[in-house]
């Protein structure tokens, strides 16, 4: 580690020691004691969710006031002016402490939208939103995916056009846009004051070249956020309907029809999640101690086939964490990031899926109906969550394409979809656009 990072590490520890308590170890696990939740998605009632959100905002403000709110951001917007590696170092150290989970603010808003505004926003917009976001006052969401634009994000269809009577105005002063369409899978939209929307502004251009990005006031008339109930029964995502939503032209990011570059900035800032999977109820449940205790409790410990299943599962989980740990150390040592993060994401989804099905095999009927026994039916939450893990944040298939093309240099699949006018492309159901 470089001197600079060692010094930074000391500062981080000093800050955290002053404002938070260190986590206690997991060593205290005893079968049948404590919370048996194995929920991947939050399952909190509204009042608990509200309380957690308040705690998250307070903690983000504390970070901000102590110089850790936006470690890689420029000082003129409240940032610290350091590197993404410093940010990773901070995250790694903070994970040793018991602090509120700030995911609602940080995963999308601070991690992805903030850097996009910084790269593409006008001065007044940066001044207005960036400090407020990193202080924890403004939460932002990403209005990208649509019912007909999933893996093929550039196939999005939400329209944006100049508002009547404003297009002819001199300069950009007073010009407005009108947005119409539907977005889906929008995390944290219900808590957001700001959304980054990608819209179709030129259907005659090839798909990547007719998109424009806008910052949308989520409280504006015509923005309708509806919870999307997922297969676990909870609602972690939203549908966002945009109906005649007016957006001032100064809230446009990047050029007209230059939105794809803006989107790439957002996607490239998808935070490296080093170490972040090492905590939480799922990680706590997938330890050798917990799983062997479960096998003993289900009288399966002596079953050779199941012992082999346990070993295989633990091997893959430990291998993934070794990969993460090594990637983290290499970044700390100043090396460029490799494919480890993408590999770890693929493995993480696979490991949790296998784990859920392995545990289901141990539990048998006790995971299809609740006997009231500790640590049994609770696993149904994880089982039902696992199909999402191979889809969200880039499907397994798309992730594999990216790995093969970017790391191994394999050629892209030939196609006409990137050169033809967007409106001429065939779409689901056979209708023209």
């Amino acid at each position, binding site marked *: 580690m470089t001197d600079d990072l060692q010094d930074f590490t000391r500062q981080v520890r000093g800050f955290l020691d002053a404002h938070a308590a260190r986590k206690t170890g997991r060593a205290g696990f005893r079968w049948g004691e404590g919370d048996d939740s194995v929920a991947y998605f939050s399952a909190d009632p509204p009042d608990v969710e509200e309380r957690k959100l308040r705690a998250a905002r307070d903690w983000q403000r504390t970070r901000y006031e102590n110089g850790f709110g936006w470690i890689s951001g420029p000082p003129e917007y409240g940032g610290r002016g350091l590197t993404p590696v410093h940010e990773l170092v901070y995250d790694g150290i903070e994970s040793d402490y018991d602090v509120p989970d700030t995911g609602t603010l940080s995963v999308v808003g601070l991690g992805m939208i903030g850097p996009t505004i910084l790269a593409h926003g006008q001065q007044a917009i940066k001044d207005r939103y960036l400090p407020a976001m990193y202080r924890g006052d403004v939460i932002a969401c990403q209005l990208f995916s649509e019912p007909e634009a999933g893996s093929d994000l550039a196939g999005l269809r939400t329209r944006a056009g100049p508002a009547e009577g404003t297009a002819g105005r001199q300069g950009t002063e007073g010009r407005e846009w009108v947005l119409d369409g539907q977005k889906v899978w929008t995390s944290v939209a219900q808590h957001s004051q700001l959304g980054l929307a990608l819209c179709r502004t030129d259907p005659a251009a090839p798909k990547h070249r007719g998109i424009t990005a806008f910052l949308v006031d989520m409280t504006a008339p015509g923005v309708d956020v509806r919870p999307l109930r997922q297969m676990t029964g909870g609602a972690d995502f939203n549908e966002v309907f945009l109906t005649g939503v007016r957006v001032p032209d100064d809230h446009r990011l990047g050029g007209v029809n230059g939105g794809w570059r803006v989107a790439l900035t957002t996607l490239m800032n998808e935070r490296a999640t080093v170490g972040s999977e090492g905590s939480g109820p799922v990680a706590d449940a997938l330890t050798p*101690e917990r799983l062997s205790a479960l096998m003993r409790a289900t009288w399966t410990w002596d079953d050779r086939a199941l012992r082999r299943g346990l*070993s295989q599962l633990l091997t*893959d989980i430990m291998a*993934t964490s*070794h990969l993460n740990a090594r990637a983290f150390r290499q970044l700390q040592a100043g090396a460029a990031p490799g494919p480890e993060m993408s590999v770890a994401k693929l*493995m993480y989804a696979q490991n949790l899926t296998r784990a859920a099905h392995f545990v289901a095999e141990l539990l048998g009927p006790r995971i299809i109906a609740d006997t009231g026994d500790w640590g049994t039916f609770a696993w149904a939450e994880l089982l039902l969550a696992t199909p999402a893990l191979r889809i969200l944040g880039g499907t397994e298939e798309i992730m*594999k394409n990216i790995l093969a093309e970017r*790391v*191994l240099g*394999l050629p892209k699949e030939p196609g006409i979809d990137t050169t033809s006018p967007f409106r001429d492309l065939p779409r689901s159901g056979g209708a023209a656009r």
Partner: protein
Amino acid sequence: MSESKEGLDELRDAVREFLAAKSPERAVRAAMETGLGYDPAVWQQMAQQLRLPGLALPDEYGGDGFGQTELGVVLEEMGAALLCAPFFSTVVLAAQALLASGDEAACARYLPSIAAGQTVATLAAAEGNASWDPAMVSARAGRAAPGTGAAGWVITGTKSFVIDGAAADLVLVVARTTAGPSLFAVQRDAPGLRAEPMVTLDLTRPLAVLTFDQVPAALIGAEGQAGRLMSRVLDLACVALAAEQAGGARRCLEMSADYARSRYQFGRPIGSFQAVKHKCADMLVRVELAGATAREAARLADEGAAGFPVAAATAHICCSQGYVFAATENIQVHGGIAFTWEHPAHLYFRRAKSSELLFGGPAVYHERLLDRLGI
């Protein structure tokens, strides 16, 4: 020894360059068809030019005092090149057995010539049932009759799957005394020792059956200590093997990716088809995991960390499976050409499968992981 990236890269480049010159495919094929199974001239050059046999041996025994991390870099490259040489047997199995014995006199006697590349050595642990379980050792050692001039002990029994057993000058043997499994040193020309090469699946790693009939032997370390020693040596051997496997798997991936970029069918490179692309991505995933577990286990060995035995067992499983997967899919990506004798893919497939099973395979390694986890 700290994990300095520049130092490791330099070492890797030097070894890779050496192997590109001395162990290209035709040299591998030539060596594997000789009775000895390796080229003694290349073995000497490895010792004299690169000091590889002594790399990870302690300074006081003529080595350069580096750790498992540096040794791992060398083994990754050797695995990638399918080098035919008695490196694993001599430097990993035999040298680690000597070090683990704690017998300083024996270390001082044997290690300097191992470090200098003058002695080829091996460890004979498994017998006909291939097990590394000390309880399964049935070869016996007894006190030599007075006045026979032997080093005090004689061994009788049979050892199988002995790596480079027919080429070794020095054979370390696990044999049972009244105190339990114990380690002994036997010289290759000792009377009553017969070495019979086995017909092997992997053509690049010779195995032999050694038959001992009242063979004079010297006790290494204390009597009855070899059970614990086998466990320690096996952990280190698994990590060294993991490095070889990770290197071999990566080479298979490179071969597949090269081919997928350059082979045209249906008017396009086959790598543009998702069925092939995803296969290559799956290989990449396994290769990355294999490399990470092998290197992490080596790092923990060097730190003397409590987590080392678990990491070693993890690396052994992950690298065994990853290499078999990569070597198998490499053939599939290439299609029919890879099924020919002339194509190198089968050499990797043979190495991968036999490495997976060398220390027992899935029937044993899963139980070993659970054992090392202590759950």
